[in-house]
């Protein structure tokens, strides 16, 4: 078997300087939340360890995850991303097509059996034998099962493959399922987000290469380092939240001054992601910084929690009313019923007393 080139060799070949390479390593160390003493370890790993091939499978999804990965404006990051992932198979950007492409993927998988990483974008339709998504003449289920056999780990990139996104939204006509429900015998990492942040994808892969293991995961199989905290808790507008200064409408004074978006439905308080720390497009901005409430795109079933500009707790229950409406209705109902009941009881007792009084009067008269 021929020796696979390392990550460093790959980026050097594409014209990236040593300085830029070290900068990338430092950035990634920071993103991963590692100590600075780990920095040399990361450098050494990326210099010496063979670059694991990554096969990027696209199933039922919108390709926004790919866009997120390849569309970073900073030349270093985009080169590095494409460099680090030896994307042997990625439908969106590969040159080969048709039978040629399919040959590449199966041959490559056979050659690197047990070593490659499988990145899956999109959920897998399962209804009616999985006919709603076919790749290269196979249904997505068969494809995934076959491809996952020799995988070292599976990275579910994006909300579709992590928890289910647009594709699994109610009523879910294709019976789409996220990856971790279909593949149970391989380590699966969920990187939810619609799309996930490019640095998060790359950081996870670097962790895999450096330490030969998955990063610490939480109970939803997300890397703790990126999904460990709520957007709310690291939000730069948190001071306005604590002070009680809220945007009431999208065009009011508070919105112009950059106050907290909690009242226009920001889901930062229930959303776990690295947006407010890592930010997007090389740390330029993230939704809340742009004055838009968080939609909670990295949370399970976020499309079903419509409408998106309301807190989920305020979202109408099937059809008619919100939790608050139902609650108020219940409280008012109880108040009315109790009131009516008490009035009726009082009236009844009063009339009884009057009757008794009459009876007594009669007795007296007699």
């Amino acid at each position, binding site marked *: 078997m021929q020796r696979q080139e390392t990550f460093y060799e790959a980026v050097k070949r594409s014209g990236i300087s040593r300085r830029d390479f070290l900068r990338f390593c430092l950035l990634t160390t920071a993103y991963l939340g590692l100590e600075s003493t780990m920095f040399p370890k990361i450098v050494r790993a990326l210099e010496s360890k063979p670059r694991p091939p990554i096969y990027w499978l696209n199933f039922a999804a919108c390709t926004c995850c790919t866009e997120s990965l390849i569309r970073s404006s900073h030349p270093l990051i985009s080169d590095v991303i494409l460099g680090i992932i030896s994307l042997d198979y990625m439908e969106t950007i590969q040159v080969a097509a048709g039978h040629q492409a399919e040959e590449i993927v199966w041959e490559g998988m056979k050659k690197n059996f047990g070593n490659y990483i499988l990145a899956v974008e999109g959920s897998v339709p399962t209804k009616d034998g999985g006919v709603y998504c076919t790749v290269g003449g196979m249904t997505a289920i068969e494809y995934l099962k076959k491809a996952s056999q020799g995988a070292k780990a599976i990275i579910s990139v994006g909300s579709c493959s992590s928890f289910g996104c647009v594709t699994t939204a109610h009523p879910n006509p294709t019976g789409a399922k996220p990856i971790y429900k279909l593949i149970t015998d391989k380590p699966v990492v969920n990187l939810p987000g619609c799309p996930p942040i490019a640095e998060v994808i790359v950081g996870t892969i670097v962790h895999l290469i450096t330490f030969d293991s998955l990063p610490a995961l939480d109970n939803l199989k997300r890397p703790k380092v990126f999904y460990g905290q709520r957007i709310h808790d690291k939000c730069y507008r948190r001071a*306005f939240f604590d002070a009680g200064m809220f945007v009431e409408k999208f065009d009011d004074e508070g919105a112009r001054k950059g106050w907290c978006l909690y009242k226009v439905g920001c889901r930062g308080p229930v959303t776990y992601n690295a947006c407010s720390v890592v930010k997007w497009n090389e740390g330029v901005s993230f939704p809340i910084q742009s004055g838009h409430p968080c939609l909670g795109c990295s949370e399970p079933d976020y499309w079903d929690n419509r409408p998106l500009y309301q807190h989920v707790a305020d979202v109408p229950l099937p059809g008619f009313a919100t939790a608050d409406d139902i609650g108020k209705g219940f409280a008012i109902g*109880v108040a009315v019923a109790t009131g009516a009941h008490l009035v009726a009881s009082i009236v009844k007792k009063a009339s009884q007393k009057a009757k008794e009084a009459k009876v007594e009067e009669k007795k007296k008269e007699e």
Partner: protein
Amino acid sequence: MQANQIYRVESECVTRYYVWDPVVRISHWINVIVVGVLIFTGLYISTPFYRPNVDEPFGASIMATMKNLHFLSAIIFTLNGLFRAYWWFAGNTYRQWFRFHIWRADFWKEAWWKLKDYITLRYTDYELHTLGHNTLATLTYVILFLAASVQGLTGFAMAGRINPGGFFDTLFGWVIPLFGGEANVRMIHKMIMWGIIGFMIHHISFVIYLEVFREKGMLSSMITGLKTRPLGWEPIEKPWEKGKK
């Protein structure tokens, strides 16, 4: 124990029974204050209705104060509830007054009879044997206690997520996947709050009614511990059977 004290009021003679010991009374009034604070701060946290008149966030800390008050009250409420649960078994209430025998048919018959009694305004003149809670009230309070427990669990689970892996998160983290996500947990937390508000409306108006119009000393019993019954009252064991005849 001041049971069976005869107490004379202006027009008639009544018997007063010492039902609620100080622990029950104190814990009740702690609950009144704490639940009031919890509902008020909770409503503010869910829909902040007041905005401080400042331009910079360092001038105010309304939401932070509300949240802190909410958490503090929640902790007091929980500890109070836990102690009260212990008191069911240790205090005199359980042994003497508190009968929660859901496995017995009589329990349900009595509850059903009492419910009909309330709804149809029959207000039968004969009294149940129970001085503390009748079985319907018992059932209500047990459901209330369970609701409050769920409220506590969901609340602490959400509070725990402020510091993932911390004390509260380790203890209550399992609640969130149980209810299917933090958003659902929040919704359940809200629904139960409205349920408790509904209970409070009924509870307060009814004790006032029973105090003023039926002269059972319901309201004052939570202050003095004494409940009132007519002089020479005869408790009846199975009133639903008597009603049939």
